[in-house]
């Protein structure tokens, strides 16, 4: 992998676009023929200050698997108006081929009032004709202009409700009627859902689910089981950093062996495109 970078303060979007073109060309000089540009999606991320580090770590593990154009928006409403930018081209070799695939990462610090109109900043940078995935770090303030504008732009809205202080009640605000939504916390429950599904048909009359784990995952798991079995289910949750144990009517469920990384989880979400009726029903059930 090789990388080219450019950065600037108080920039215009034209500067960013020119930098992208120039870096792509420079990157191609190191290989035989031009690097192939991504052709799958634009990956947009809204990253408030407290999530910078976690977002960068996740992205580091993601770039090669999803060589999209990534646009990271770092809102800084307290600073003076302006946009600072850093543009990188990461060129990954195509295995057994003589060419590279170029992933583009545009980091934009939106200072002052610029953070209030993110759609007008992002729209010129979207790759035409490709879907837009929006990863929102932290709890989105639904109804606020930034969220509303970016929701209008995206084809898929990705959150991690483990980052929300008010899950599961806040699930009632998820914009299922506007765009396909997904939740990384929901994805984390997948190995447990498979383990529970393996208990069918014995589990059909389940009455109580006991989960040792975060509130988000526990409530989604209970919402899922209740909505799939079409019955009211009592949830007993004991807090923990990750799901450690699950029991149905007092019977412990065998723990799955695989724990996917943060990059794996986001990667799996970026592989999905359509709405998930099962997730939507589970989140709605959890919010009740």
């Amino acid at each position, binding site marked *: 992998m090789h990388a080219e970078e450019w950065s600037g303060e108080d920039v215009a979007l034209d500067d960013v676009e020119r930098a992208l073109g120039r870096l792509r060309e420079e990157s191609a000089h190191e290989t035989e023929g031009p690097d*192939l540009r*991504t*052709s*799958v999606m634009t990956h947009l991320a809204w990253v408030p200050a407290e999530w910078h580090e976690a977002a960068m770590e996740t992205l580091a593990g993601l770039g*090669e*698997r*999803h*060589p999209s154009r990534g646009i990271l928006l770092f809102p800084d409403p307290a600073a003076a108006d302006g946009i600072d930018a850093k543009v990188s081209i990461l060129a*990954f070799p*195509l*295995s*057994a*081929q*003589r*060419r590279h*695939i170029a992933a583009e990462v545009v980091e934009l610090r939106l200072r002052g009032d610029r953070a209030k109109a993110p759609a007008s900043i992002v729209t010129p940078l979207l790759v035409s004709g490709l879907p837009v995935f929006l990863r929102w770090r932290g709890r989105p303030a639904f109804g606020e202009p930034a969220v509303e504008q970016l929701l209008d732009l995206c084809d898929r809205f990705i959150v991690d409700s483990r980052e929300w202080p008010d899950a599961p009640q806040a699930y009632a605000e998820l914009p299922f009627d506007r765009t396909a939504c997904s939740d990384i916390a929901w994805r984390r429950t*997948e190995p447990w*859902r*498979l383990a*529970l*599904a393996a208990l*069918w*048909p014995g*589990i059909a009359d389940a009455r109580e689910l006991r989960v040792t784990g975060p509130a988000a995952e526990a409530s989604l798991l209970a919402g899922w*089981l209740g909505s*799939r*079995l079409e019955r009211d289910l009592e949830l007993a949750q004991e807090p923990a950093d990750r799901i450690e144990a699950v029991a149905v009517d007092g019977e412990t469920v065998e723990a799955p062996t695989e724990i996917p990384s943060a990059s794996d989880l986001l990667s799996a979400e970026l592989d999905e495109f359509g709405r*998930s*009726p*099962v*997730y939507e029903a589970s989140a709605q059930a959890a919010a009740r």
Partner: protein
Amino acid sequence: MTELAENPLLVGLGPRRTPEPCVLVVFGASGDLTRRKIFPALYSLACRHLLPERFAVVGVARSDWSDDEFRERMEHAVREFGRDDFKQEVWDWLAEGTRYLSTDFADESGENRLGALLNELDEERGTRGNRVYYLAVPPQAMETVVTALGKRRSTQGWTRLIVEKPFGHDLESARRLTQRISRHFAEEEVFRIDHYLGKETVQNMLALRFANGIFEPIWNRQFIDHIQITVAESLGIEGRAGYYEEAGAIRDIFQNHLLQLVALTAMEPPIDFTADSVRNEKVKVLKAMHTPGPKHVVRGQYGPGYIEGKPVPGYREEEGVAPGSMTDTYVAAKLFVDNWRWADTPFYVRTGKRLPRRETTIGIQFKRAPHPPFEESATEELRPNLLLVHVQPDEGVSLAIGAKVPGQGMKIRTVHMDFMYGGAFRTELPEAYERLLLDAMLGDQTLFTRSDEVEEQWALVDAIVAAWKRDQPAFPNYAAGTWGPAAADDLVHRDGRNWLRP
């Protein structure tokens, strides 16, 4: 897979396809195929949790090995040929259910011991009498094994039979083999493996054609000038003289891989993606292909030459090859599919060993623009549109289009729009055998060849080979490391065309 439909908790849990519990029995387990392909594929499936929880593998061969010795050899094979990093816990899981039986299968005691072992595994591993028999054995052993298995097939569970090529040596032997198999196994239980059909890019041909509205309306004689299919290998016969002397390029590649690629390129849209719908359409193409006359087929044999700068011997100098061998190592042909869509559209196909590089491509050459309004000098470097499907090694699709050269005046050149698999999907492409083994365990025959397809393929090959008996070309007629005999160039030059440079 009835559980899937009945269990409401599995709805939405991804496209995970896990077969029912079963035992995979590999005949010819000491051979190269088991080592290089089958076990590495099983290991990759195990890494992705795609094998059933209750699963076992039994290797059957003549070599006098113990269970542990077999496991050890297969572990080495997985480490050497597997595409995934070696994980001890995954291997331990696979090895725990792996057994080996040493028998030549020509005697009753071998059959009895296998039956006893399988029953034992049903008890121990919960495999419910479900069997997948993989026949990776030489053609002469095929009938013996099929008959023995048929006589003693399990009365519980389901049985599936995976048959490796060659499916016979000619039409008559293929029919005989089919008859022998059908005495004991229904067609729905037989999975004739052509590993080309398991390749992602071959399946992508179906996606390209039938999932994109722009191609199908122009996928016919009105817009397509001709089609070229190349299956080129830079390798020689790699110590397989015994097999290759009998088969030649026409039976090794042309009869199966190449004709399957023609069928997938030319077939009508199936009504759905079920096994029979897809195979019905492929058979129609094979039936519609008329036998090319002798002038439309070129055969060749390589002489000494150079591959990647290194001298390599000619075919007749390869170990085990007769000094005066007349075996073909190269075949090119001009084929026609006589139906409404393709009448008079030539399909130029070629395959050979010791060609300059390993490359499999399908080239769809469109007709020239009818009246380009540019001066002739502006378009002298412009070629007609070409859609190239790269099957291997650079998997992907590229479309050659004309584009204006930047600057003053109007000068138009051919440029390529590329879709490379690795560029869009950074996941590694699965090995063909992974897909096919899994499909066989799931009972999905879509990517396997049906007996009538095989027979149509042999009918065409028999007609070509019959004509060859009447003349004796001067072999060798192309040097290793070149693109085949001059006569193959003449085949396309006569029509005012050229082979595409792969």
